[in-house]
């Protein structure tokens, strides 16, 4: 072996020495660790006595980059955070930025953003449960989970131009309006393709005795512990924590009178489970997908017409490309927005905006010094907060339960390490 490499597994972090324990390095390169998670397990035979997670193998300096890219450029970086549902991160980022600027979106923009956020939620949960199944050996579950994601990526490609890292939102709106017929294609997907796919997927896993035996009663966390450990999202809701930002701090179409003309908030239910184990989290995610489909249907029914970007006098959105290319006012206006010594001018101060991302509460804490780039763009990543509890969840379990619990927490390494 070449001496070029210098990777050394980390030594014992705690001082207790117990000669009977065996240290196993799980990761940082392992199929079940969702990329780059490194677990240092101390085993007594098959039973895990102690687990020390090591992270940072994907720390790319997102927050440092946020101080150098302006409010529209940074959306490109947010795509690469929770890469299972990139559109939701875009929405979270611009939700915080619009709170900083004090902008109220147009109704059509809110409707489109709600639709794509819920599509992102379906995307994320399909991947999470599919990957969880894959880690436990059910490769078919993985394929069944990925198959319904492909039409969603086609729909997002039609809308945003890219199938995966979409960078769809901008300050005060979105890049482009929905193409004609897009909502019909979503409706067709939600009515014809998704229900049988979910049915198959669910039957394959939940009606499977072997799978259920592997996930039931594993990795239990109680309601109070979940709150104290800052858990949010399906992981917390599976322990009975009744918290969903779409209901508790409504935003976009989840708030009453979202279009300014009395449109009701979208009606849906938030699935809560009380088991606190891996099975509960999977069930919560599967049910959330169905609720998301219902939400999208309602929003499509209520879809308003109108502009998707806020009006020009708000002075935050780029003008239409036709104006930029064919009129001098459009060109000047474009320069005013993108040149680094000009650009958007937020107020001086700080703001926190959060949405209910598929993984939990995804928030951005922005510090603005009045310039066109944030002074500090702090991301509150749900994966980071959810992963801290992992050693606690793993107490007393066996090594084969490690992957089950890890998969159920939906730890996305890019969001974790930023």
């Amino acid at each position, binding site marked *: 072996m070449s001496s070029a490499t210098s990777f050394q597994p980390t030594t014992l972090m705690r001082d207790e020495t117990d000669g009977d324990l065996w240290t196993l390095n799980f990761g940082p390169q392992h199929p079940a660790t969702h990329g780059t998670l490194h677990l240092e397990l101390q085993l007594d035979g098959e039973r895990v006595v102690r687990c020390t997670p090591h992270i940072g193998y994907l720390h790319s300096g997102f927050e*440092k*980059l946020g101080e150098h890219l302006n409010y529209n450029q940074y959306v490109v970086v947010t795509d690469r955070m929770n890469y299972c549902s990139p559109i939701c991160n875009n929405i979270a980022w611009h939700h915080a930025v619009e709170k900083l600027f004090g902008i109220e979106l147009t109704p059509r923009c809110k409707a489109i953003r709600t639709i794509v956020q819920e599509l992102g939620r379906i995307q994320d949960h399909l991947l999470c449960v599919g990957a969880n199944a894959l880690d436990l050996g059910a490769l078919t579950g993985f394929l069944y989970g990925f198959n319904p994601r492909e039409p969603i990526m086609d729909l997002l490609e039609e809308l945003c131009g890219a199938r995966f890292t979409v960078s769809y939102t901008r300050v005060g709106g979105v890049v482009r309006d929905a193409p004609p017929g897009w909502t019909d294609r979503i409706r067709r997907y939600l009515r014809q393709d998704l229900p049988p796919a979910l049915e198959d997927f669910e039957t394959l896993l939940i009606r499977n005795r072997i799978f259920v035996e592997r996930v039931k009663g594993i990795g239990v966390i109680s309601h109070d512990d979940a709150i104290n450990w800052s858990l949010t999202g399906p992981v917390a809701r599976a322990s009975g924590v009744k918290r969903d930002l779409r209901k508790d701090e409504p935003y976009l179409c989840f708030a009453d009178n979202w279009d300014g003309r009395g449109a009701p908030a979208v009606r849906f239910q938030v699935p809560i489970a009380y088991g606190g184990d891996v099975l509960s989290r999977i069930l919560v995610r599967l049910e959330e997908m169905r609720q998301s489909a219902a939400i999208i249907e309602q929003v499509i029914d209520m879809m308003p017409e109108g502009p998707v970007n806020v009006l020009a006098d708000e002075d935050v959105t780029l003008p239409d490309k036709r104006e930029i290319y064919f009129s001098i006012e459009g060109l000047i206006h474009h320069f005013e927005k993108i040149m680094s010594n000009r650009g958007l001018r937020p107020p001086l*101060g700080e703001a926190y905006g959060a949405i209910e991302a598929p993984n939990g509460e995804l928030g951005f804490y922005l510090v603005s010094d009045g310039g066109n780039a944030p002074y500090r763009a702090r991301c509150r990543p749900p994966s980071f907060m959810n992963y801290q509890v992992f050693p606690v969840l793993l107490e007393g379990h066996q090594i084969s339960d490690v992957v089950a619990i890890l998969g159920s927490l939906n730890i996305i390494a890019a969001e974790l390490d930023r």
Partner: protein
Amino acid sequence: MATADAIAALQARFPELHFTPLPLLRYPDGRDSGQYWLRVPAERLLEVARFARDDPRTRFEQLCDLAGVDYLNFPGARERFAVIYSLLSLTHNHRLWLKVFVNDPDPVVPSVTGIWRGAEWPEREVFDLFGIRFAGHPDLRRILCPEGITDHPLRKDYPLRGRGEREAFSVVTRETA
């Protein structure tokens, strides 16, 4: 309003700290953002935090986020670092932000891991990226950056592209592999 009650409770309990709730942001037309913060001195942080979590009028059961900010180049800043605690109350459904300001050299803040267990890793992250130590933390060591790094990357005097750490590796070629 629940947040006003919570702030009033804190003011009543800690009159000597002279809590004045300031909005995080004030828009150009004068209205404020509805998000309020209180300045807490570092040495009283644990008492304030414990009261905030336990008192029925405040009931901030969850520490939503723990962030560090380096105000080195910020216009009008008097202290360099702030540790910002985002508190969330599920029972009353409101939020509050606490800011603890510290300075170089040797910034130290008491650790709230005894009050909210979810502060463990965010505090390690703030230590890693800013260099602020947390007294009483069970396991304060670097979390995101590699072990050998001596700098604190998110400080304003650290360049975006680093100081050559990303190039300091040996090369594996086809001949040697």
